[in-house]
């Protein structure tokens, strides 16, 4: 199985841990300490959450080092998820 005979070089996982730790603190701080408008706050929090999720996906789940085919497989449900939620939102918004 040649899939096992690669990547002896590991990314700096502890650095990713530090990033995730700092981003979590920033997130909690933004949510409770800031007085920015609610919509902007929502946007900032979602941005930070997606950033953290991206770090986990890219480095811990190794998507950064996988083939494009596997990456497509991994992200394929995301547009479907958006369609599902947006379609139901239209039921009562418009």
């Amino acid at each position, binding site marked *: *199985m040649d899939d096992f005979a690669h990547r002896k070089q590991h990314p700096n996982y502890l650095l990713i841990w530090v990033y*995730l730790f700092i981003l979590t603190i920033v997130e909690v701080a933004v949510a409770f300490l800031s007085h920015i408008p609610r919509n902007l706050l929502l946007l900032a929090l979602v941005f930070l959450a997606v950033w953290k999720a991206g770090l*986990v996906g890219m480095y811990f789940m190794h998507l950064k080092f996988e083939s494009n085919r596997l990456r497509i497989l991994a992200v394929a449900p995301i547009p*479907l998820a958006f369609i599902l939620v947006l379609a139901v939102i239209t039921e009562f918004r418009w």
Partner: protein
Amino acid sequence: MAHAAVMEPPAAAEPGAGVYNEKLGMWVFLGSEVMFFTALIGSYIILRFGAPGEWARPGVVLNVPVTAFNTFLLICSSVSMVKAYAAVVDGDQQKFKMWLLLTIIAGASFVGVQAYEYTHLVHDGFLPSGIREGSELWEKVEAGTVPAATAGIYGSSFYIMTGFHGFHVTCGVVSMIWVYLKALRGGYSATDYRGVEVIGLYWHFVDLVWIILFTIVYLV
């Protein structure tokens, strides 16, 4: 024509995504999990933004510091899981087992803290059906800091989302114990670490979902 097709020898298998079957299977499963959690999170978003009244502000009902600690715990467990994976790839069995054990402990602690959180929430009067009359939180309802009209859908969506996530964490911990027991018998090596990588993918996914849940349930 259909008969002719049946008579043909099977075509050679395509290389596919270029990964072994177990890993491909896990990714497909995680794809279905994305849709599962989308149903839960999507319902929450729709209920919340479609609700006629205000929702309780962050930190009023839920204990954010405790959950922030739990988030930290789960992130740490993700790091220890990936360190276990790196160790087995490098052929370091000792470190592999140590990191895996730490992951199991952190994962089980996460479930423990969640049980503690639930117990306190129920004690304070936050139920899936809403706020219990006469409870500590009921005073906040009467003071107007917790809107009573949306408390029921808040409670039910909160317990459904975090409950299903907790269930996933529990399944992950049980699976990791299985992997750990196999590791003790020398079931994994630098040339075959499939089980470790596959359970790792699941575990990081559970962490990823929690990152999203923590933000939209506790902080928004």
